[in-house]
């Protein structure tokens, strides 16, 4: 999983081509979507994906054939985003983890938000509401929703992709779902749904 690791495989050029085409390239659409959801810009997403694939190829001998290529690629993309892109843009968004912990322990809030937002309101969200709500989340929260709900990664995979403990993955996902619901209930209100 570690791209920084010394190469521990040896592949012929033919094998490299096979790995790249059969194990890396099939994930390009998911990678592009991930890049876009992180940067919220199509051109930046293209740069990020291209950069990720070139890095993946350069470090291909750190990749063990038949292991989780998708998680490996997602991790490279996420690191490129943090190291290259985020530095450039300077997003001021340090998540307050103490707040996350407190929030995680308060069940009442959940019930309240749930009552605020109803399934039938969601059925009318046929436009960009959900996409806008997702994009409006802080990037750390957005990321866990993308990895879990859009890409179906498990806790352990997310922990490796994001370099955080599994407990943090869980609490971040929990908080992210709550924030997303808050955004959606704002949309629902503006669409004329009452909170009763």
């Amino acid at each position: 999983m570690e791209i920084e690791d010394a190469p521990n495989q040896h592949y012929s050029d033919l094998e490299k081509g096979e790995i790249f085409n059969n194990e890396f390239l099939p994930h390009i659409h998911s990678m592009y979507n991930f890049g876009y959801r992180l940067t919220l810009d199509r051109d930046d997403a293209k740069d990020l994906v291209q950069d990720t694939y070139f890095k993946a190829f350069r470090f291909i001998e750190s990749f063990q054939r038949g292991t989780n290529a998708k998680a490996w690629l997602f991790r490279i993309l996420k690191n490129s985003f943090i190291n290259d892109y985020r530095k450039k843009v300077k997003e001021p968004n340090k998540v307050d983890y103490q707040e996350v912990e407190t929030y995680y322990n308060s069940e009442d809030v959940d019930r309240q938000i749930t009552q605020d937002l109803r399934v039938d309101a969601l059925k009318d969200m046929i436009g960009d509401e959900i996409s806008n709500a997702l994009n409006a989340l802080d990037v750390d929260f957005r990321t866990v929703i993308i990895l879990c709900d859009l890409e179906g990664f498990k806790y352990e995979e997310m922990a490796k992709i994001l370099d955080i403990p599994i407990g943090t993955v869980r609490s971040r996902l929990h908080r992210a779902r709550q924030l997303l619901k808050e955004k959606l209930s704002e949309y629902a209100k503006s669409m004329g749904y009452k909170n009763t």
Partner: protein
Amino acid sequence: MSNLPNPFISPSGKKPNCMEMLQLILDGQATADQSEYFKTHMDHCMPCFKSYQLDMSIKELLRTKCCGGDAPSELVNKIKSQIAQNI
């Protein structure tokens, strides 16, 4: 409910609350036994049933609305040709 062993109970014996069970389900981390148990649990726990309906609808909406299509073919071709040149 009643006699069913609760598959959510951790080895340390801690019993999770509704919210913790629901999160495992939503996050796709629940075992088959846990999913089965939760289904029965929802039959007599209205808050769980309502939250589950809502959260799963959101998850579904995310999947259908936010998996924004394919990568541009010009990007795919560029990457392919660059790599082909380097092999």
